[in-house]
């Protein structure tokens, strides 16, 4: 990338890609990012239409506006890609992420963790006398915040799904 394209501010974008669910399609998408030096902050992929054999990949990436434009164009060039949609530049949609958060502790810390879990509307999906596993769903920033709060309370493990995104209103991708 040239200096001309590097100077503008780095932006964070959520991009959804509808792809044919065929062998190696995820490697094509990921290979494009690594090969051209783009960032992946998170990536989510699953089949969304079994009959049509399509999967949806949702990628959170960062770059200058020019780089983001290139990412969209390069994704659009892949033969297995049906559509590319940028949820950040288009009318912002809903972004949600799920995380499983394991906290180990006893006494006051354990009670505080549970109390905060309730405030964040977590489900407790596993418990022992010394541990909880919280299931939390929300915007990535909400999950970041919860994880930070759990850190001094005995956080030992986090598993996050990455972002899923969809449009508001009647519009589809």
């Amino acid at each position, binding site marked *: 990338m*040239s*200096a*001309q*394209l590097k100077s503008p501010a780095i932006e964070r974008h959520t991009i959804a890609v509808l792809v*044919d669910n065929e*062998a*190696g399609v995820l*490697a*094509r998408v990921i*290979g494009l990012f690594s*090969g051209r030096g783009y960032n992946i902050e998170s990536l989510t992929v699953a089949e969304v239409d079994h009959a049509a054999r399509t999967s949806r990949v949702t990628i959170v990436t960062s770059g200058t506006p*020019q780089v983001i*434009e*290139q990412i969209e*164009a*390069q994704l*659009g*060039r892949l*033969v*297995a*890609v*049906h559509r590319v949609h940028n949820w950040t530049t288009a009318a912002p949609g809903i972004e949600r992420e799920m995380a499983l958060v394991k906290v180990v502790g006893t006494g006051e810390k354990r009670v505080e963790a549970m109390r905060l879990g309730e405030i964040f509307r977590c489900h407790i999906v596993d418990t022992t006398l010394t541990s909880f596993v919280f299931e939390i769903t929300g915007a990535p920033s909400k999950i970041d915040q919860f994880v930070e709060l759990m850190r001094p309370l005995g956080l030992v493990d986090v598993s996050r799904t990455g972002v899923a995104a969809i449009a508001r209103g009647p519009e589809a991708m």
Partner: protein
Amino acid sequence: MDKDGKALTGAPTGAIELSGAEMVIRALKDQGVTHIFGYPGGAVLPIYDALFQSEGIVHVLVRHEQGAVHAAEGYARSTGKPGVVLVTSGPGATNAVTGLTDALMDSIPLVVLTGQVATHLIGNDAFQECDTVGITRPCTKHNWLVKDVNELSRTLHEAFQIATTGRPGPVVVDIPKDVQFKKGPYVSPEAVRHRTYRPRTEPDLAAIVKAIDMMAHAKKPVFYTGGGIVNAGPDASRLLRELVEVTGFPITSTLMGLGCFPASDPHWLGMLGMHGTYEANNAMHDADLIVCLGARFDDRVTGAIEKFAPHAKKIHLDIDASQINKNVRVDLPIVADAAKALKEMLHFWKTQKRKADAAALKSWWAEIDGWRAKKSLAFRNSKTLIKPQHAIQRLYALTKDKDVYITTEVGQHQMWAAQHFHFDKPNRWMTSGGLGTMGYGLPAAVGVQIAHPDSLVIDIAGEASVQMTMQEMSTAVQYDLPIKIFILNNEYMGMVRQWQQLLHGGRYSHSYSEALPDFVKLAEAYGAVGLRASTPDELDAKIEEMIAVKRPVLFDCRVDPKENCYPMIPSGAAHNEMILSDAEEEATQVSDEGKMLV
């Protein structure tokens, strides 16, 4: 899966049953393929067996798979048809990777068929197994591993569709050996339509109208054209000529686009870029409108990007949307096939009775003529040493009235060929532009000569490059291909030496070949003809002898080993900061940032 497979391929009931190997041959024939380049091996034996038992496809046996791919590139570039390659698994596939990458960078349509170990062995580190689709994913436009024979014919037809439409490029179809033996229904090309792939070719007419409006108001316009015009077919070149004629604008081209516009036309400025002409680069720098047609603002063309064309509005026509705003931000993008867009530009220019600004153009041409007067391609000739530029000029003078095709290797000789050999037609110039692959030219010449058996095919080569794929001389001899390998032998990797002189204090680290073969004897060992010219006096006679010989020739043209390629935009400099000679080069200080650029 059988049921699903059949439903997806849309095979009519009663479709003919063929083995996978037979399907390959049948699909090639149905796609109009007459020549393939290849090398057999264990994992493609069934296909070679089917080939043996069929008629109508000529197989050219190369000596290395890289040679097969470059030959297919030469075939494709000189005909406008896809080049087809057949190689085995493992090393057969990995040897094809350089050619695939070359074709991807230069948008050459290729269909490369690779054998693979049997499906039940995939992933077992079997003999001659490699992850071909994994390795070739980043160097193909698309690729497939076909594990089900019911999918094979459909995949082959899709492969041709994807390789040849939109922005052309190489594709790989990897076929396990058991799939080649299995029988399944054959689907003909008409029954196949890809699920998602729909390249955009029609221009947005509003953008076209805006473009001609910008053109009509321009005071210092220039057309900057590239390989996209070649790929859009002969119509695009014809329409380009007409557009230049009606507008009167100057025109330059990238290395890849040479021949799309006749070099003999007065509107022609010569090639632009690092070793382009003074007039082309200064016109780009001072232009107020750049109309880019089928080129991609490559770093060899733009020079320092922050100093590139500071006063110009830019129109960018490209069939590939990802090229827009990639290196340079443009004011008006047009995503379309070049021939279709040019046709509409001409249509609206005429029907709207547009006129270029004649007075402004007149003074613009006066400026350009001032730059032309610099004669930036001039060089000091010698009575004792053959200057490489002189050798190309003589080669051009003695062949220009013939039906000639030129390929090149990569380096100084390639740039001298681009500067001093002139083309009036597209598809006559085959060179490795994007990847810069030493060793491209000799096998490419094989492919060109296969496609044009009666034409004069010359590889303008360097002695370093040509040794990378020299083994293909054996192919040329086997198929009676009278290719002419015209080696500008300066004993150095000349371009490396030139950069070491400019950037590394004249420390010529490993750029001199201390041992070279005797190319005349080497030619004879292959069963070809060897010729040598060592002095300017004997050059013409030897070139004429080379042309007269109807056999493959290695021509050892001993040139001045110290000659450098000028003019040149040094690394990190702008279009108007060209250096024209060694004297200027010595005075040039390349910045530290510039040194980091290649």
